[in-house]
């Protein structure tokens, strides 16, 4: 009920519509662009933008526009999968670790320490080297590298909530731990998690693009934006449009996700959100 009020302020923001547009493209790219992203046309290579090819053609004569649109599906789809996997895994460990404390907490924290000592990109490269390229592998690799951040943050949030009086009262009544975690702790930490998730999407997209740019991610001829950027760099002088559009879309998409996260975190326009202070019905008067 209250999430709807939050989204109301998003209606006024242009980046929200951009993201909606991308999601639509992700669901069915052919709605947006009629051209096939894989058809090569060697006679029409490196053409600048025109009426038929909105973003021009690349070095194999493929339509850059349709490739960018199909790339949306990869970026957002893979990004979302990575987000869900890492959030589920990291979140569960974070909640258990924060709630139970003691040796459970120690154990989980030492594991996250081990993962966090190695820089993300190094783990990603090593895993990519051994697993090889491919969308599915990219999702696995990035989920493994990114869950630790969520675990840490969520554990911190849980530590704060678990000492609240109403959680103590729930224990006194004799309610099960699993119930307390699901019904009392989880709803209280959802707002910050939501913000983390939107910012995380931005990070995921950059990571996917980086891996593909290095040639370790999505395999050719799949139109991932990072891979397109990689191919386009060779033609920057003669056909800049080939790198420009994928690069632009990466930037705009990450920026939009960040701004949505920002808006959810500090809502304007009279939206109510429970970032700790506001509570349902906190407008006094009804007795």
């Amino acid at each position: 009920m209250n999430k709807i009020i939050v989204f109301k302020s998003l209606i006024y923001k242009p980046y929200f519509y951009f993201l909606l547009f991308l999601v639509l493209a992700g669901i069915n790219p052919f709605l947006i662009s009629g051209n096939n992203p894989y058809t090569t046309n060697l006679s029409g290579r490196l053409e600048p933008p025109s009426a038929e090819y909105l973003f021009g053609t690349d070095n194999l004569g493929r339509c850059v526009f349709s490739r960018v649109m199909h790339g949306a599906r990869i970026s957002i789809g893979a990004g979302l999968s990575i987000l869900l996997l890492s959030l589920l895994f990291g979140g569960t460990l974070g909640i258990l670790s924060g709630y139970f404390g003691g040796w459970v907490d120690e154990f989980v924290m030492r594991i996250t320490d081990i993962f966090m000592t190695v820089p993300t990109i190094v783990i990603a490269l090593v895993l990519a080297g051994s697993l090889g390229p491919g969308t599915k592998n990219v999702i696995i690799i990035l989920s493994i590298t990114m869950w630790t951040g969520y675990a840490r943050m969520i554990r911190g949030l849980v530590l704060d909530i678990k000492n609240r009086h109403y959680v103590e009262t729930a224990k006194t009544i004799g309610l099960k731990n699993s119930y307390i975690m699901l019904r009392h702790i989880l709803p209280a930490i959802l707002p910050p998690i939501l913000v983390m998730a939107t910012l995380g999407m931005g990070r995921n997209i950059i990571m996917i693009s980086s891996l593909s740019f290095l040639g370790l991610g999505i395999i050719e001829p799949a139109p991932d934006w990072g891979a397109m950027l990689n191919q386009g760099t060779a033609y920057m002088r003669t056909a800049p449009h080939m790198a420009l559009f994928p690069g632009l879309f990466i930037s705009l998409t990450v920026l939009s996700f960040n701004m949505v996260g920002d808006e959810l975190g500090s809502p304007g326009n009279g939206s109510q959100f429970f970032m700790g202070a506001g509570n349902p019905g906190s407008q006094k008067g009804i007795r």
Partner: protein
Amino acid sequence: MKNLLSVKELKLVYDSPAGKAHALRGVSFNVEEGEIFGIAGESGAGKTTICRLLMGFMGKNAGISGQVYFNGDDILKLNHKDLYRLYSRKIGFLPQSIASLNPLLTIGTHITETLKKNLKVKTKKILKQKAIYILDALEFSDSGQVYNSFPYQLSGGMNQRALLAIAFCCFPNLVIADEPFTGLDPDLRDHLLETVRILKYKKNISMVIVTHDLKVIEKICDKTAIIYNGSFVETGETKDVIKTPLHPYTRSLIKAMPENGMIPTWGFAPGALYNDAGCSFQPRCPMGSKEKKKHIVSFPVSAGNNHYVWCLNAKN
């Protein structure tokens, strides 16, 4: 005696999803120099709202009407800078909750910060001396240690005394206290009441004390106002209001004290959304509830010696 604080027809109305909410329905009172004015009532009757309005904490809200004159200026109309200049030096604030203390600063820092801002004293030694002086006055057994302690190291009662120290450290003309003694042991509370009374005589400090504890009112307040559902129901000298209460609500409060048998009066206050013109206590009133007609009380009835009652049955 000059009027230090003069409040006229202070109202606060705001819009809520369920209609217009009246947090305060027009209260007026005066506080003279060197006088302690007590406001007693239930939680939710509007006491904290009065405190915040008197301090000017609520800004230029459209729903506020009325005037609050302090030394000739209307607090509600002052700009931020002038208002800020009054804080701590002329008007001190004593908050209800010890969460108002910054957990990262020692008590000493809290006090010396206030002193520095208001007294233009910069020497650390003198600031510390003044801080220890006020801490001693508040009956701390080891003021030096309290000076260097953080809020979490002190008990709740000690933190409340620290708040008192911060409010009084610059000896302002007027201190507005929001439930200052709630949650303290009875002995400690009595000790502090004595201290406050001594401070009042020595430095001629006036106070507005908002509380629900009638014993506090009895012990140090010169004048009292009883508030119910956003408006005053009885005002006057404390001895008149407590010893000879005239309004049925005041009577119910006195009866409910454990010393007097703890006799309850059932029912709840109607709340800020109550929009009828009549007496809001009537449904629960032992006298008024039997009458079919709604009491409309626009003017208080005077019972002599500045004792006013907003009740039609007051003569009984």
